[in-house]
């Protein structure tokens, strides 16, 4: 039986959601969408039906959020709640029906990105957790981890600095570069806190697209085969241990047998150059 973080939505039957809910999290420009574009055909080749969904794609609120973001009067609480509306609409109309039908749901970001953004913008952490209390607990959350120094060149050489991704709404006196650095640093720190709290499976996103995909694919294969998460994952990062050490542990995890086959040109689309990796993140 599937679980929610707090009270489930009225009328939502949590039984018989036989599909798998897999979350890909990570900051702006880290390459989430690129990875999902690789994961989807790979899963479909194995006969798995896939639904992919992302923030702002709801029929109800997607357009309204886009329009609100183009103006200059969108407040922080309003923005958070607009996103929550979009999320609830997709949860009820896309995610839950797909899980009932036995699909693999790949979601490009989940409540965690939305919580991180809200908290960095001064929202009360307890408040935003309550807002998303009705969210389904995913089968796994893969967090694409990157440092701000590795992130900047990707963003610069793909789509450039975006107003919201640079947090210009909260650091308006800075130029885009300074603001981006400051905002993303805060956001990444918040992601690390969430990673511990919600036991994300961390994947180092600094190598090339193909290497990242290999690790991600191994993780997804394990989730789909129903094998338990390596005990290593469940152990919370000891306080004070450098982030690098924890990442390394994850990368050293032996891939399950089913996923051990190397990535070949036949089984997965060719890896894309790094500069394009970030390109697909325009969805947010």
């Amino acid at each position, binding site marked *: 039986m599937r679980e929610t973080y707090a009270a489930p939505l009225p009328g939502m039957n949590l039984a018989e959601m036989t599909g798998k809910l897999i979350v890909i999290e990570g900051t702006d420009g880290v390459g989430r969408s690129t990875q999902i574009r690789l994961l989807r055909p790979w899963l479909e080749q194995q006969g798995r039906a896939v639904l992919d969904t992302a923030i702002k794609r709801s029929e109800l609120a997607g357009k309204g959020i886009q329009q609100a973001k183009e103006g200059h009067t969108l407040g922080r609480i309003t923005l958070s709640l607009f996103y929550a509306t979009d999320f609830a609409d997709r949860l009820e109309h896309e995610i839950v029906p797909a899980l009932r039908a036995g699909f693999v749901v790949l979601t490009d970001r989940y409540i965690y990105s939305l919580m991180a953004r809200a908290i960095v913008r001064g929202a009360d952490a307890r*408040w935003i957790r309550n807002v998303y209390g009705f969210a389904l607990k995913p089968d796994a959350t893969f967090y694409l981890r990157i440092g701000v120094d590795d992130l900047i060149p990707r963003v610069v050489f793909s789509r450039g600095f975006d107003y919201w991704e640079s947090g210009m709404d909260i650091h308006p006196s800075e130029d885009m570069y300074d603001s981006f650095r400051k905002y993303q640093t805060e956001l990444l720190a918040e992601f690390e806190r969430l990673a511990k709290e919600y036991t994300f499976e961390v994947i180092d996103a600094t190598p090339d697209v193909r290497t990242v995909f290999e690790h991600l694919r191994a993780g997804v294969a394990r989730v789909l085969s129903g094998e338990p998460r390596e005990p290593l994952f469940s152990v919370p990062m000891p306080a004070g241990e450098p982030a690098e050490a924890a990442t390394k542990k994850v990368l050293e995890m032996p891939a399950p047998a089913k996923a051990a086959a190397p990535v070949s040109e036949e089984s997965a689309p060719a890896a894309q150059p790094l500069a394009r990796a970030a390109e697909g993140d325009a969805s947010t």
Partner: protein
Amino acid sequence: MKRYGEHRFPGKLFVVEGIDGSGKSTQLTLLHQWLQAEGYGVVFSEWNSSPLVRETTKRGKKKQMLTPPTFSLIHATDFADRMEHNILPLLKAGAVVLCDRYIYTAFARDVVRGMDPLWVRELYSFAVKPTAAFYFRVPLDVAMKRILDGRSGVKFYEAGMDLGLSENPEESFHIFQHRILDEYENMVPEFDLTTVDATLPIEEQQTYMRQIVRAKLAQAKRLRVAP
């Protein structure tokens, strides 16, 4: 982020609540006229009126896409926009802000739609506590008669048709409003709402409201001296 509580701004916030047909909007209009005549800087804010959010809500209702959680969240979004851009800055500036419906409307409707009562209350914890919240208490039959006499019919969500209470809109409306009424009654002690007997003559209700408002306006700014 400030949580629901007493604000310390120089402005004052008065809100009216009650089921459709309770006469609350009429009373608020009369209060508005009086406060203006008295020389106060008065601003009016209506439920469901944010320019940023209105289109989305309208579309959701028209296409009947709204479910209990999205109905709740889109109204909270609308409220947040008015709170951030309207109500809060005006209270800081010392205005008298009048709201036709406030968070209690959401608490009543969303809970009747099956949302968790604590979830909804926490959702709106960014709201400021009104200086006074008037609840217009009216028997359901009186309110129903006022509404059904005055217009051609009730709208889908207004009648709670999304809850599948009845195929008949009028019957659904009746059941839905009855449940809303129960929620309001529960909130009177919870939020210390000031009840107004909405079956009394309009002038009597207004006199009572003005008495209470006057007592709370001691330090509010006047833009000009009353004539």
